[in-house]
């Protein structure tokens, strides 16, 4: 599954065989694993749209919109009511065109190392939401290209890999600049059927091409961990914004599945909930579908982090860990017991190099270990 790809640290495909989103929904549990859930989505049912006339109060509202002769109010169209006429389509079009003018300048191209993605500025001082797999880890230099072509540099802050949330801060400029920004919305208010707009730099940044927009609708919400839309996404869109029809950011582009209807976005409330950790450059969780592991087992009844068994051919064996070793510190953090060790391992990303301090007999040793990946 990860063939041909060892040179790409960020390269990842999770293949969920025989699973269709029409029949089942992908949800992610608290441990971050993608698992299948045999919930039948309402989308399976093909509904023949009924042509309903507007309620009296809505009709009044519609009449007040002097430029339109439609029966459907704009607000309910944007919530997902089917447009009934050319006038309805024109109303949506005018709204979307204005929205794009207003929010597109907040979408940026992001380059961190060899990875190219997108991002969205969400504050005047220059905080940029993006995907964790774009920034990789805290403290790296990011090159950002604004819509007008201005290139600015930034620094990557926290990464929450499990839900793919990453944060960048544009470096202070002289004189200090105020950045045009988009507001974060509330992804709890997002509902299937609502129109939405994804932006980003598909295929990577191209001179003379502003951020590319796609219009679609929200298809499903999975356990607060992803928003699925039919705004088609591809490489380079990662980290770019998903806007609601009020122009607020409701999600951040993250991953795709094979069907054109499987475009997954990180709900913006993830950034709200985890803001403090992201802003202080914490790095936690791991990419779903690729579990970090080191290959050791604890003692059945021990209450410290003594290694009971080291499996051959695993990162632990490669690092020289042996049965009987007592783990004192893992990646700079004190290890109280085997459960703590497990949780520290699960916060690492496969490929990370960590220092493990152990006690063997009377000696304290420092071992270097490369976190392995267990595909699931």
């Amino acid at each position: 599954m990860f063939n041909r790809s060892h040179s790409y640290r960020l390269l990842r495909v999770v293949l969920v065989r025989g699973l269709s989103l029409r029949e089942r929904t992908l949800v992610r549990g608290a441990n971050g694993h993608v698992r299948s859930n045999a919930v039948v989505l309402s989308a399976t049912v093909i509904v023949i749209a009924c042509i309903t006339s507007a309620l009296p109060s809505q009709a009044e509202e519609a009449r007040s919109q002097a430029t339109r002769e439609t029966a459907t109010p704009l607000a309910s169209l944007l919530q997902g009511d089917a447009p009934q006429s050319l006038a309805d389509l024109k109303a949506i079009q005018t709204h979307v065109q204005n929205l794009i003018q207003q929010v597109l300048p907040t979408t940026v191209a992001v380059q961190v190392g060899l990875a190219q993605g997108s991002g969205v500025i969400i504050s005047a001082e220059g905080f940029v939401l993006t995907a964790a797999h774009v920034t990789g880890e805290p403290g790296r230099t990011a090159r950002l290209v604004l819509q007008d072509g201005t290139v600015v540099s930034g620094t990557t802050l926290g990464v929450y890999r499990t839900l793919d949330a990453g944060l960048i801060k544009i470096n202070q400029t002289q004189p200090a600049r105020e950045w045009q920004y988009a507001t974060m919305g509330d992804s709890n208010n997002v509902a299937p059927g609502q129109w939405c707009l994804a932006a980003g730099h598909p295929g990577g940044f191209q001179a003379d091409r502003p951020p590319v927009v796609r219009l679609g609708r929200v298809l499903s919400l999975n356990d607060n961990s992803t928003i699925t839309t039919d705004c088609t996404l591809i490489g380079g869109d990662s980290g770019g914004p998903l806007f609601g029809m009020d122009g607020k950011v409701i999600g951040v582009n993250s991953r795709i599945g094979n069907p054109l209807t499987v475009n997954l976005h990180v709900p913006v409330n993830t950034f709200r909930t985890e803001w403090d950790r992201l802003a202080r450059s914490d790095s936690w969780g791991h990419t779903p579908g690729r579990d970090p592991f080191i290959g050791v087992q604890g003692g059945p009844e021990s209450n410290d982090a003594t290694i009971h068994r080291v499996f051959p051919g695993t990162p632990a064996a490669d690092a020289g860990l042996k049965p009987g070793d007592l783990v004192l510190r893992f990646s700079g953090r004190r290890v109280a017991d085997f459960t703590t060790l497990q949780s520290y391992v699960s916060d690492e990303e496969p490929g990370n190099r960590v220092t493990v301090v152990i006690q063997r007999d009377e000696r304290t040793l420092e071992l270097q270990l490369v976190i392995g990946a267990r595909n699931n």
Partner: protein
Amino acid sequence: MLRRRTSLYAVAICCLLAGNVQATEPAASNWPAGIRLLPGENERSHRSIRAAFREAVSHANECTVSVRSDGSQVALGTIIHADGYVVTKASELPENVTCQLSDGRQVAAKLVALHPDYDLALLKVNASRLPAIHWGDSSQLNAGSWLATTSLTEEPTAIGIVSSPARPLPKPQAMLGVGLEQFGELPRINRVIDGSAAANAGLQIGDVIAKVNGQAMDGPQTVSATIRNLLPGERVSLVIKRRGRSLSIPAILGDATRIGNLEQVELMESLGGPLSQRRTGFPYVLEHDTVLRPKDCGGPLVDLDGNAVGINIARVSRVSSYALPASAIKPILADMMAGKFPAPTNGLALETVSAGE
């Protein structure tokens, strides 16, 4: 029925990075091209939404033709003149085609002009007093404008919006992905870029490139000049001298604007459906997010006023289709009708078939 079909598909979830390109098992790309599921109730392309476009496409769908060969559609076409002139996508055409009109007639077609840069073919069909397309102003088209790709029926084939206003496309640049140094009278490789065409072909540091496509190389400049004249995706044959042996090695050139393996890029781009064979090198394009099949190209792309703002010319990737903007091609179509770009006599020899067949 729906359940049985959908279970055919494997769902691949990929991270979306450019540059760091995703590899995936071939199974994930085996999207059955012929099967199209009905869009769900909440999808943008649901029937109820396409139905709202009927009024907008009511004239343009009469100016749309289905270009057919052996009983199936190979492209759509656009009637640009009442005397039976139809423009379509040249590279999709086999030798013999007929055109089906919106009134159901199947008429003979003859290739009269070809414009390779824009990939446009002008056909003359055996019919007259046809409705001709009304052109719109593509230069006034903002991102977010609705677009409809017409069909021969009252509803559009597909809908979308302008993703990025009309712009010139940069010329694609091929890349082998090696660093070279002068070694006597020959170029020698001193660096191989990971994931490049050279790496995929198995080229190694220390290899000497003696020939590219049969042409002898005398230094790094000759190699880059030769590669520059080729296109990404083209296959080159290299003669390599390695440790006293002479090896013949083929390589598929990469795209200099992308890092990584072109095959892998293409695999990811085609997630969700097939792409047009010819999808680069157009001088000027309008990028839109309509989901087209390759055989939906060649027809009109209309705005909400029913005017053609472009001709669909390629399904480019999972996220985009290209149209040739009306403002860019109107003068070219006039030139084609005036005989400035005659079809090669030995090229696509379109055979005349009897009307009504």
